[in-house]
Every structure is written in C-alpha cells, then in structure tokens.
C-alpha cells in the first residue's frame, strides 16, 4: 500500500496535475471573448506552488524510493525538478502577452505547458522503465500540440507535423530498446537491471543492442547528431515561447533519463557510439549555424551543438562522479541561457512572428539598449565567456573530459567553441555596429516578459559568478545515487 510519504514524493506532480485540470475546467466556463491572461497568471502560480512542493520534498526524510521502487526522490530528481519548473514558470510568464498578440489566446496553452511539466518532472525521478516511458510521452505529446499552436499559420502546423512524426518514430526505437533490455535482464527496474548486468560475466549482445536503441530514441529527443534533422524546422515554425520551453526543459529531463540509464543501469559501454555522436553533433551544429540567416534556425543549430558538448560528459563515463555533476551543471546552465535568448527572440518577433531575420536585429543597441544588452549577455554565455553560466558549464565538461584523457574529443570541442563564437558574435556586431532599420518596431517589454527575462538572467549570472553552491549540490548526488 502507498504510504503518505509516497504521495509526498510525487507532490510536485500532484500539484501540477490538479492545476492543469483546473485550468482546463475553468477555460471551458469562461466566455469566449474574455482575455485568458488571468488564466495564465493562475498557471504561473501553479508553477510556483510546484516549486514550493519540490522544496518541501527536498527534506532529507523524504529522500528514497516511492511506490514500490517506481520512482526515487534524491538530489538528482530535486535538481531537475527545479530546472524544469523554473523553465515552465518563465515560459508561462513570457506567453502572457505573446498569445493575445498572435491571436491564439486560448487557455489550453497554459494547461498543456503545466501538464507537460508533469511528464518532465516524472522523467527526472522515475527509475522504472514503464514510468520513464509514460513520462517521456506525457511531455512529448504536450510539446507536439504546443508546437502547432499557431494553427492558422502553415509553418506552425508543419512544424508540429514534423515534430510529431519524427518524435513518434524515435519513441518506437526507445520502446524497442526497452523491450530488448527487458528480454536481456527480465526486469524493467533500472536498479534491478544494474544488479543483473553487474553480476553477469559477459554482457549479452542483446543488451548492447537494447541500450543502443534506447540511446537512439533519446538522442532524437535531445537533438543530438546524427538524429538532429528535425530540429531547425521544428524550432523555426513553432511559437517562440514554446521553442524556449522545448529546447530547454524536455531536453534537461531527457538528459536526466540518459544519466539514469548510462550511469545507473550500469549499462553496456557505448563509449565509441557516444564519442562519435558528441563529435558529430558539435560539428554539425556549429557549421550549420554559420549558414543561417534566421535567428531561430541559428539558435536551433546552436542547440544541436550544445547537445554535443553535453554528450562529451557522457563520453567521460569512466570518471563517473565528475561526469554526472558536469552534465547536471551543463543542463541547468544551458536551460538558463537558452531560455533567455529565446525570450528576447519572442519579444522581438512581433505579431505573426514577422521579424526573425538577422537583419531585423540591426541597430538594436540604439533602438532598445536594454534588450540588446540582455541578448548580448545570453549570447556571450552561449559562447562561454567568463562570469556567465555558460563558461563554467563548458569548463567543467572539458576539464572532466581531459581528466578522462579524452584529448581528441576535447580538441574537437574547443575548435567547435571557436567556430561557434563566430556566429554569436556576428549577431552581437549586427546589434551594435549596424544602422537600425527604422520600420521595425520594438514593442515595450511587459511585466510578464520582464520577469521571465529576469529569471533567466539571474540564473545565468548566478551560475557564472557563484557556481559553487550548485556544483556542490550536483556533486553530492553521485554518492547518494549509488546506494540502493
């Protein structure tokens, strides 16, 4: 029988589910011509309540397995809960004025964001493959719908279609991997699988195949090469706040699943597969981004490159503790800075998302100095300049790789960082050195958007100036995770 403690271990998910259903219910009662902004503010309070629930859950007496070893609350899950929930909160805040502007002011939007967050939170605490699968699908299905939310715009529906088809295709691979892993070990619990695989003298070929299939499925979801083709199209067509969400929160959650499977399930070593995926992803992402003139597409390629940097941590798997903590740190830093960058893009896009070309950013430094300065800060963080979160994130990843003697992968990564800085700097130069184009209006920053940008700005700066607290937290995790 589940105990009261079990329910506390899923308290954030319960709060979010209740909130999401309440939004759906209230939405159907509201008169059609009424603004849905209040509903959005209500949703933002839901995200805050879930953060409070996570903080409550973080007390030591609630750590441990819940519901008969289906999920597990530990440093790791709390960390990713906070990342996901803060991203959710910021996404809701930046959508408050975006939705009426695009004439898609529907309450379901907020419900979908909140319910998608349920899936992402569960992904970070699940240790049973059944629950991981369901959680992954909850978050994916919510993002399929959200990416097609500008449903009268052909680009948006096309983006939803591509995301849906390729996402479900990836799910098929992930699921087949789980089936084979179940066949190889007779269990679907990550810790039982770890025990069984740990005891076996030699690893069956079936287990290798299984983990490779699972990796394929998850690599699709995090946009890691060679499974990245969908990314630029989907990011270009989907509404900007949705891209801010889906390029950060589900990615962080999927990396959480990948950490659980690669490091905890003691799964067969896929070193070379991960090595190649990391090197390829960094190169394809950065070279692809060089060729783009659309800011959203450029950031999409940049997110492929960043998935590659993160994969470097997975290639350092033999240095387990360091690898886990640097991967966690990177997920958080990447979420903060990318969220901020897409918040600025959302602000600039205007009605009908008309202003997305690099040209449209010319002279932004004169037209709107604050917005330009903030965007510059996020771009510098994406490059990896000191005092931003991006710097320490990259620093830990590559120092871990060097300690694991991955000289070549580190070199490829550093060369790629150099290439990458070119296209970020090009945008910055455009903002400050070019003459402004007068016909493009810069709308005033509203309160919700301001708060969203502030959240990502503070998070990026905090991770860049005082990384120790977060780093210490991530390092406390690996030892806690190993204990059954």
């Amino acid at each position: 029988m589940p105990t009261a403690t079990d329910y506390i271990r899923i308290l954030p998910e319960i709060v979010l589910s209740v909130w999401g259903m309440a939004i759906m219910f209230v939405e159907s009662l509201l008169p059609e011509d009424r603004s849905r902004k209040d509903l959005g503010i209500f949703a933002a309070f839901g995200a805050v309540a879930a953060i409070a629930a996570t903080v409550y859950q973080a007390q030591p007496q609630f750590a441990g397995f819940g519901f008969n070893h289906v999920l597990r609350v530990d440093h790791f899950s709390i960390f990713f809960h906070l990342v996901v929930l803060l991203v959710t909160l910021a996404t809701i805040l930046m959508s408050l004025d975006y939705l009426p502007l695009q004439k898609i002011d529907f309450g379901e939007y907020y419900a979908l964001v909140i319910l998608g967050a349920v899936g992402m939170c569960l992904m970070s605490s699940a240790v049973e493959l059944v629950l991981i699968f369901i959680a992954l699908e909850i978050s994916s299905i919510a993002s399929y719908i959200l990416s097609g939310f500008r449903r009268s715009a052909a680009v948006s529906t096309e983006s939803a279609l591509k995301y849906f088809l390729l996402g479900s295709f990836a799910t098929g691979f992930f699921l087949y991997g789980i089936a084979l892993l179940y066949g190889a070990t007779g269990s679907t619990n990550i810790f039982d699988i770890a025990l069984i695989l740990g005891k076996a003298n030699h690893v069956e070929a079936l287990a290798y195949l299984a983990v490779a299939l699972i990796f394929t499925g998850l690599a699709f979801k995090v946009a890691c090469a060679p499974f990245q083709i969908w990314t630029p199209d989907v990011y270009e067509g989907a509404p900007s706040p949705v891209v801010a969400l889906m390029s950060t929160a589900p990615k962080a959650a999927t990396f959480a699943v990948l950490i659980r499977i690669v490091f905890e399930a003691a799964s067969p070593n896929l070193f070379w597969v991960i090595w190649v995926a990391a090197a390829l992803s960094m190169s394809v992402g950065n070279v692809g981004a060089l060729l783009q003139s659309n800011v959203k597409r450029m950031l999409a390629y940049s997110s492929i490159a960043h998935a590659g940097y993160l994969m470097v941590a997975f290639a350092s798997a033999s240095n387990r503790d360091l690898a886990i903590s640097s991967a966690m740190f990177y997920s958080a830093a990447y979420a903060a800075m990318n969220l901020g960058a897409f918040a600025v893009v959302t602000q600039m896009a205007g009605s009908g998302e008309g202003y997305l070309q690099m040209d449209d950013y010319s002279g932004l430094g004169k037209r709107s100095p604050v917005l330009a300065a903030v965007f510059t800060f996020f771009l510098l963080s994406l490059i990896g300049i000191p005092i931003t979160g991006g710097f320490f994130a990259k620093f830990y990843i590559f120092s871990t790789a060097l300690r694991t003697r991955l000289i070549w992968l580190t070199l490829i990564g550093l060369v790629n960082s150099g290439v990458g800085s070119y296209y970020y700097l090009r945008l910055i130069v455009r903002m400050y050195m070019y003459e402004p184009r007068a016909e493009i209006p810069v709308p005033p920053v509203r309160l919700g958007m301001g708060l969203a940008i502030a959240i990502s700005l503070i998070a990026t700066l905090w991770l860049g100036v005082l990384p120790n607290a977060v780093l210490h937290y991530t390092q406390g995790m690996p030892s806690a995770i190993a204990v059954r």
Partner: protein
Amino acid sequence: MTIPISWYLLLSAFLFACGVMGFLIKRNIITIFMSIELMLNGVNLSFIAFATRFGTLDGHIFVFFVMVVAAAEAAVGLAIIISVYRTRETLNVDRVNLLKL
C-alpha cells in the same frame, strides 16, 4: 507442439522493420502514421513474448501502457494532420515543405 519464443521475436523484429521501412519510403502522412503504429505493435509482441518466457507480468503491463499511449498519440496525431490539411490541402509530405530541411 509449442512454437518457440524466438519465432515470435523474429516476427516482432520483422514487423518493426516493416514499420521503419514504411516510415522512410511512404509519402502519404496517414500511411506514415500507420507505419509508426506498426512499429509500436511490433514492440508489443516482443514484450508479450519475453513476458511469457520469464513467466512475469511486467511485459503484459507494459503492453497496456503502450496501447494507451498509442491511442493518445493517435488522437493528437490525427488532429495535427487535420490542421495541416486545413492550411495546406495536401497530405503528401513532399508538398509540406515551407520550412527547408
């Protein structure tokens, strides 16, 4: 005479491969979507076969969840396909190409 488990696994792999092939070569969105369903059902057969071999219920339970998720995916997928048809009036993936790949 009972049929050995490996036959079921082979059939399951075959169904999965058919799904993958269908996904890659078919051009009609509905057919592509059906290919994905075929992949999922191929996997289901694997789960059942393994569950029978181990004599445990885990695999059976997994299949139920997969079916539920597939149903949810079908609902969302068909809705997306309808909205694509409304804006584009075609169900050929090659003509749904506003975003360059």
